[in-house]
């Protein structure tokens, strides 16, 4: 059935439920002979012209190149490997250096804060709090010494354990702020 389809494709005939006839085989043979006659360079393209060892080596190289090209193309499409760029356009080898930076860059900081018209933004969402952090007044390099561009920073990068919030946050009991005795009396 497969051979029939192949022959039908070679003949460029519409598909039909016909059987395989001798005329089909004769047609294919004539086509191949005509092709070799037109291009004599293809006349040596036969594995029969090689010895057994060369033939096996050629077949193995063919299979290995097909498999490795598929793998390389897959990883190239996924971005896992990238071509080395040198003085020439493409040097012909690949590097397995990671293409993504580590640690991943921080997400972009929003620079907008809610205004009075954005009533649906209250209570403030987390991006608004992040924007308020970004707009703090000490983020200014023209301030005098202990702050500004001459400040001396210390960053505790070891304090992020990557565990739950319950392990990072604790509840502390503090006394309430002192209330005015008159207000206290009025309240209670």
């Amino acid at each position, binding site marked *: 059935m497969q051979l029939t389809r192949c022959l039908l494709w070679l003949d460029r005939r519409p598909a039909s439920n016909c059987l395989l006839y001798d005329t089909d085989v004769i047609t294919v043979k004539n086509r191949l002979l005509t092709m070799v006659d037109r291009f004599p360079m293809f006349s040596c393209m036969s594995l029969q012209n090689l010895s057994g060892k060369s033939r096996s080596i050629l077949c193995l190289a063919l299979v290995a190149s097909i498999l490795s090209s598929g793998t390389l193309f897959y990883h190239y499409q996924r971005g896992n490997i990238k071509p080395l760029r040198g003085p020439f356009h493409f040097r012909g080898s690949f590097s397995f250096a990671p293409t993504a930076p580590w640690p991943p860059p921080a997400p972009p900081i929003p620079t907008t804060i809610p205004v009075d018209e954005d009533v649906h933004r209250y209570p403030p969402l987390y991006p608004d709090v992040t924007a308020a*952090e970004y707009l703090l007044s000490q983020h200014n390099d023209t301030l005098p010494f202990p702050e500004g561009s001459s400040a001396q920073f210390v960053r505790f990068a070891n304090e992020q354990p990557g565990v739950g919030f319950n392990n990072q946050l604790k509840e502390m009991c503090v006394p309430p702020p002192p209330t005015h005795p008159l207000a206290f009396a009025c309240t209670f």
Partner: protein
Amino acid sequence: MVVPNYRIPIRYDSLLNSEIARLGRRTYVFADVVWDPNTNESYVKMPDEPEHNHLAHGAKYRAARLPLRAFIDAPSSGSAWPQGVAAPRAVSVAWYERMCPPGRRYLVDTGKINADMGLNLGDAEGLDIVTKWGTYLLSLSDKPCVELLRGSDRLIDWKCVISLA
């Protein structure tokens, strides 16, 4: 009549690390409260199994990082110090990364420094940890940017503030 005390959430390592920075006369860099440090997305997918999802109403996603000022409004989160305290205000990580590119940072491995100082974090008092590290930061006055390496030993453990819980 008994007036109940306020119960406020504190981030204990930020609290005591900012005290270390103040003793070392340095600007404390406050960071977000991070749930998943390995992602660049804003949200983290929660597991589908309800027994592994501890969030209220079985929420499917949760925030990967939250700004610290959503929890505390204090000098350790960038607010002004009280009157009479001469210390620089804390800055955010974004400003620190702008002012201190990676080539300008002096990286410190806390394990090595603890071994040099003879400080054993397992049985040391919290006051000793804070005082000794403040003194060590004072000795680094010629370094503009000091960064304690990510993944090195945490100075402030939850046992330091176990009496506050």
